[in-house]
C-alpha cells in the first residue's frame, strides 16, 4: 500500500535540493554516500567478522578441538536508485569456515529491483534466496544475537547451496486492513556451486575413500516461495516457505574392474523442502520458532533410486538489556533421517546461550556456549573417525567480533 496521502502538494522550490553546490567537487564522499556530479548517490555498507571456535570432543566446523580461527565473513555492498522506483545493488562476499569457503571472493547478490507498486515488484540478477527468518541473512553476524544459527536449518558451511540464485523474483506486500498484511516472494533461478563450498567438501569427504573417488558436482535450478503474514498483533508474524532443488547432481568414480561396476558414475537428487516460521517482537524481547522438513529423492546409476528425508526445528528467545548488551538462547534438534530418530549419527541436539556486546555502534563482540548431544551434523569424517562417534554430550565455545559501516 502506498502511503495514505490525505492531501498532496508538489514542492516547486526543491530543484537544488540534491544538487552539489558550486564549491562541492565532482566526486565526493559524504558518510557512506559517494556523489558523482549530479547523479544519485551510490551508498556503500559493509562488515567484517572474525570468529574463534573451540570444542572438547569433535572437530565441528573446522579443526576446533585445537581451537580454530578459520571462521571469517566479510562483505561490501553498493546500491543506487538511478530511476524512479528502481534500485540497483550488489554485494561482494567472502567467508571461511574450517576448510569451506577459503576466503574466495564471490558475488553474493547483484540485481536490479523495480517496484511497480507496494503490491508487486520484480528483482532480476543474482538474488539472495528468501527462506524462513534467516536464510537471506544467515551469514550476516550483525543481524542477530547468536554467533551460530541453529545449524540443522542454517548450516554455515552450505551457503553456496542455500544463499543465492541466478534468476529473478516477484514480490510484494498486500495490506489486509484489520487482518494485518501479507507479503510474498516467488523466485526461480540457477544455483552455482563451487569446489570450495560445503556441498563439495562434504562429497569429497564422503567419496574420496578407495575404491570411490569424487569427480565433481553441478549447479542446479531451484524455485521457491516465501510467504509472511504480519498479524494484527503488534510484533507477531508467521511465515511459510516452500522450495525445491531440481536435479542437484555429482559425479564419482569407482576404481574397480568394470565387471564389478567400476568406472564413472552419476548421482542426481531432487530436494523439496517446507519451512514454517513464527517470530514475535515485543519491546526488548524477541521470540522465534521454526521447523523445516526436506526430502532427498535420489537416482544413482550404480546404486539405483532411493528416498530419504531430514527435519529440524528450534525455539529461541533474546532480550536486549540495554544499548550495549543483549542475551539470547535457543534449543534446536536435527534428525538426519526422519525414519530413524535414534542411534549414532541419527541426531544432533544443541542448547546455546549467547551474550552480545555492542561497545560502539560499529563494533560487536559475542560470546557463546553450546551444549550438544549427537553427531549428525559433524560431516567431517577425515577429522572425526566415525568409529569414535557417540551420543554423549560435548561442548563448543564460539567467540566472534564484527565491525561494520
Amino acid at each position, binding site marked *: 500500500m502506498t502511503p495514505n496521502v490525505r492531501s498532496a502538494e508538489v514542492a516547486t522550490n526543491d530543484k537544488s535540493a540534491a544538487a552539489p553546490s558550486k564549491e562541492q567537487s565532482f566526486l565526493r564522499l559524504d558518510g557512506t554516500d559517494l556523489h558523482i556530479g549530479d547523479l544519485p548517490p551510490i551508498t556503500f555498507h559493509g562488515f567484517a567478522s572474525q570468529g574463534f571456535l573451540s570444542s572438547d570432543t569433535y572437530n565441528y566446523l573446522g579443526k576446533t578441538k585445537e581451537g580454530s580461527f578459520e571462521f571469517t565473513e566479510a562483505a561490501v555492498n553498493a546500491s543506487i*536508485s538511478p530511476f524512479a522506483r528502481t534500485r540497483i545493488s550488489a554485494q561482494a562476499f567472502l567467508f571461511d569456515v574450517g576448510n569451506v569457503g577459503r576466503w574466495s571472493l564471490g558475488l553474493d547478490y547483484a540485481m536490479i529491483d523495480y517496484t511497480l507498486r507496494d503490491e508487486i515488484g520484480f528483482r532480476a540478477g543474482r538474488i539472495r534466496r528468501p527462506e524462513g527468518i534467516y536464510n537471506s541473512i544467515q551469514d550476516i553476524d550483525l543481524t542477530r544475537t547468536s554467533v551460530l544459527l541453529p545449524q540443522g536449518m542454517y548450516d554455515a558451511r552450505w551457503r553456496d547451496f542455500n544463499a543465492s540464485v541466478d534468476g529473478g523474483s516477484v514480490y510484494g506486500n498486500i495490506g489486509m486492513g484489520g487482518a494485518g498484511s501479507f507479503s510474498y516472494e516467488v523466485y526461480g533461478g540457477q544455483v552455482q556451486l563451487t569446489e570450495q563450498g560445503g556441498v563439495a567438501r562434504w562429497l569429497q569427504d564422503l567419496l574420496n575413500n578407495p575404491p570411490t573417488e569424487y569427480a565433481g558436482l553441478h549447479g542446479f535450478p531451484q524455485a521457491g516461495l516465501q510467504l509472511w503474514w504480519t498479524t494484527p498483533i503488534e510484533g507477531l508474524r508467521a511465515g511459510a516457505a516452500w522450495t525445491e532443488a531440481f536435479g542437484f547432481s555429482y559425479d564419482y568414480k569407482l576404481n574397480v574392474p568394470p565387471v564389478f561396476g567400476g568406472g564413472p558414475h552419476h548421482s542426481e537428487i531432487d530436494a523439496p523442502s517446507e519451512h514454517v516460521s513464527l517470530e514475535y517482537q515485543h519491546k526488548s524481547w524477541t521470540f522465534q520458532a521454526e521447523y523445516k522438513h526436506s526430502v532427498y529423492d535420489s537416482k544413482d546409476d550404480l546404486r539405483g533410486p532411493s528416498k530419504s528425508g531430514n527435519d529440524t526445528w528450534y525455539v529461541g528467545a533474546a532480550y536486549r538489556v540495554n544499548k550495549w548488551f543483549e542475551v539470547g538462547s535457543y534449543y534446536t534438534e536435527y534428525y538426519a533421517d526422519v525414519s530413524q530418530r535414534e542411534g549414532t549419527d541419527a541426531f544432533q541436539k544443541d542448547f546455546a546461550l549467547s551474550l552480545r556486546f555492542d561497545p560502539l555502534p560499529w563494533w560487536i563482540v559475542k560470546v557463546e556456549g553450546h551444549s550438544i548431544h549427537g553427531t549428525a551434523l559433524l560431516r567431517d569424517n577425515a577429522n572425526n573417525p566415525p568409529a569414535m562417534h557417540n551420543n554423549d554430550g560435548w561442548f563448543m565455545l564460539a567467540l566472534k567480533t564484527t565491525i561494520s559501516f
Partner: protein
Amino acid sequence: MKTNLFNSLILALATLWIGFSAARAESTVDVIANNSVAAASLDKAGLKDTLTGKTAYWPGGEAVTIIVLDGKTDAGIEESTGMSASAFKTFWQRLAFSGRGKQPKTADTVEKLMAMVAETKGAIALVPAGTATAGVKKIEVK
C-alpha cells in the same frame, strides 16, 4: 455525604484517566521530510509502512531515504514502528545486507539531521516534537 464522596472520587478518577490518555496519545516526535516529497500527511499505517520499507517509494516514484536522529528519538521509533531502536537498526541491516532495502542514514544532532533532510531528495525523519522545521516540510500524522 457518602454519595458526594463517591461522586467526587469517580470525577477525580475520570479526570486522571482523561489526562493520562491525552498524555499517552501525544506523540513525542514530529515527522519531517525533504521538500521534494509530495505528501503533506500520512496516516499511522502509512508512516509505519514507510519507516519499515514496505513502502520504499513516494507516490511520485522517488526512493524513500530514512534518516535517524541517533539516540534521541528512540521512543518515537517505537511508537511509529512498534520496534525498539535497536530492533529497528537490526531490521534494516537485515534488509540492506540481503539486498532488499536501503539502510537508514544517521545524524547525531538535530542540526545535522535537518541539513541532511533538506539536502536529500525523498528523505523522511523523526525529530523531537516542537523542533523548528525551517528548510524542510512537516508531515502531518493522522
